[in-house]
């Protein structure tokens, strides 16, 4: 595939950027006192948008994600692209040791497998049980009313005596012999930012690819499995949302030290049980999903696809969602939007070639040119 480089048109390109900037600031022409969208406002009031961008950008930098959202006028694909472009300018300093998500400071934890789980179920912030009705009172929300809501909620909360961390539901099932044992593999994980995906790829490559995949793409493929092009039939053993302490060795003492925290959504699903090839007793199969930010649809979709891909890697793919190449090469938002967008670029040479061939073909077939 080839297309000519753009020559000339520099003024138009600069003009296009200026027009876009005009649209971003056009509200300033109005009589009312318009204010630019603050980064903190995006961070807090559009937090799920920020969560998508940190996740799909693959870098947990909420503030820059908010900036990217602002400059892209809310386009998540463009924002993730900008975040990835930024990360490409930064040196890699080091990797953390493998972190254990059981240490997450949770704000939400549920299970659809059991009514009762050790430590209890806590709904946390969720729209799951809310009526999807427009809240007209937010159309003209006063600053005073806005400020009063959070204060009133905090004041109404009793002192909570809860542990800092909670046990995993899967651990209890595994202790009963209902799940396959942990593999205990400790080989270095696959770094998708440094190595191309050459199939077959290890599971760590699949998990990393899906962790920064575009939410809608991941959902679409997982949905195909849910609807019938697959047979994972998942039950959510546990879905948790919380802040994971990021631990690194202290530069002087070497002691694990918390250097910050990341908001993570994590989902573990239990799927159809299967016989043990080695003749052992049948056990449930399991799938795992996680991503930066609070994005439950993404984590659930990833967990389903993890299980589907495990099956495809073991038995050969029976449907698209079990095919690692199909799934992993088509779920990245920046990759796919780039390919779609490139069709807008000049293809004058290739299309001229198509025109020439069609005209020649038509002449040869006796049809009017």
């Amino acid at each position: 595939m080839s297309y000519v480089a753009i020559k000339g048109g520099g003024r138009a390109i600069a003009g296009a950027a200026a027009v876009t900037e005009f649209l971003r600031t056009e509200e300033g022409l109005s009589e009312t006192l318009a204010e630019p969208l603050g980064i903190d406002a995006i961070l807090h009031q559009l937090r799920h948008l920020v969560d998508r961008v940190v996740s799909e950008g693959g870098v947990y930098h909420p503030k820059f994600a908010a900036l990217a959202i602002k400059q892209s006028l809310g386009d998540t694909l463009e924002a993730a692209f900008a975040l990835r472009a930024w990360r490409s300018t930064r040196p890699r300093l080091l990797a953390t040791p493998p972190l254990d998500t059981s240490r997450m400071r949770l704000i939400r934890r549920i299970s659809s497998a059991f009514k009762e789980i050790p430590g209890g179920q806590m709904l946390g912030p969720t729209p799951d049980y809310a009526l999807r009705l427009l809240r007209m009172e937010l159309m003209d929300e006063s600053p005073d009313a806005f400020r009063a809501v959070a204060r009133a909620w905090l004041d109404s909360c009793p002192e909570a005596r809860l542990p800092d961390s909670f046990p995993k539901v899967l651990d209890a099932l595994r202790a009963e012999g209902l799940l396959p044992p942990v593999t205990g593999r400790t080989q270095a994980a696959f770094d998708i930012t440094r190595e191309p995906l050459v199939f077959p790829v290890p599971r760590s490559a699949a998990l990393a690819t899906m962790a920064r995949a575009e939410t809608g793409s991941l959902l679409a493929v997982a949905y195909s499995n849910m609807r019938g092009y697959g047979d994972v039939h998942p039950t959510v053993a546990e879905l948790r949302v919380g802040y994971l302490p990021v631990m690194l060795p202290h530069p002087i003492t070497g002691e694990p030290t918390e250097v910050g925290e990341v908001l993570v959504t994590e989902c573990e699903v239990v799927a159809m049980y299967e016989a043990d090839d080695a003749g052992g007793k049948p056990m449930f199969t399991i799938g795992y999903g996680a991503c930066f930010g609070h994005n439950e649809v993404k984590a659930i979709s990833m967990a389903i696809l993890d299980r589907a891909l495990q099956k495809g890697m073991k038995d050969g793919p029976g449907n698209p969602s079990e095919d690692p190449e199909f799934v992993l090469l088509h779920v990245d938002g920046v990759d796919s939007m780039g390919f779609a967008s490139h069709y807008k670029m000049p293809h004058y040479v290739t299309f001229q070639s198509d025109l020439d061939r069609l005209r020649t073909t038509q002449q040869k077939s006796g049809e009017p040119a």
Partner: protein
Amino acid sequence: MTNLERKHWIRALTAHPASVLNALADELASEFDVKLKSLPQAGLGLLTLTDGAFHEPYYLGEFPLSSCSVELSMADGRTAAGGAHVMADDADLARALAILDAVVAARLPGWERVSAQIDAGAAIRAEEDRRRRAMLAATRVDFAMLNNAENDDDEG
């Protein structure tokens, strides 16, 4: 002296604005000779997680990371080593935290001020943790209260 162990100082101190930490470190550093053991640098860290299904390591993504190590020397010959990794795209902050780390660890002049900032920061973090626990406590749900008939109706 703060009761917090050294491994918790970064979390506590970073509850304060970077400008506060940089100013304090600069002020204290004027009393010492500051030798950089590793240059302040800003870049990225790679977050390795253990997956919850099979406990295998994988990379969830990257995060901004800055780091620095210093050695402080006083005119009387005393020295102290300090260092910091911090989740931020701010090499100056890493340098400041490394200086503050060394000052408190060796109780160099000014350590009480840093210690007070650690305790104040820890209080801010404790309030954050309290809010998060409140989100859990306020939404604790007991699905065991559902009777079997209701539960059957609710299942998808």
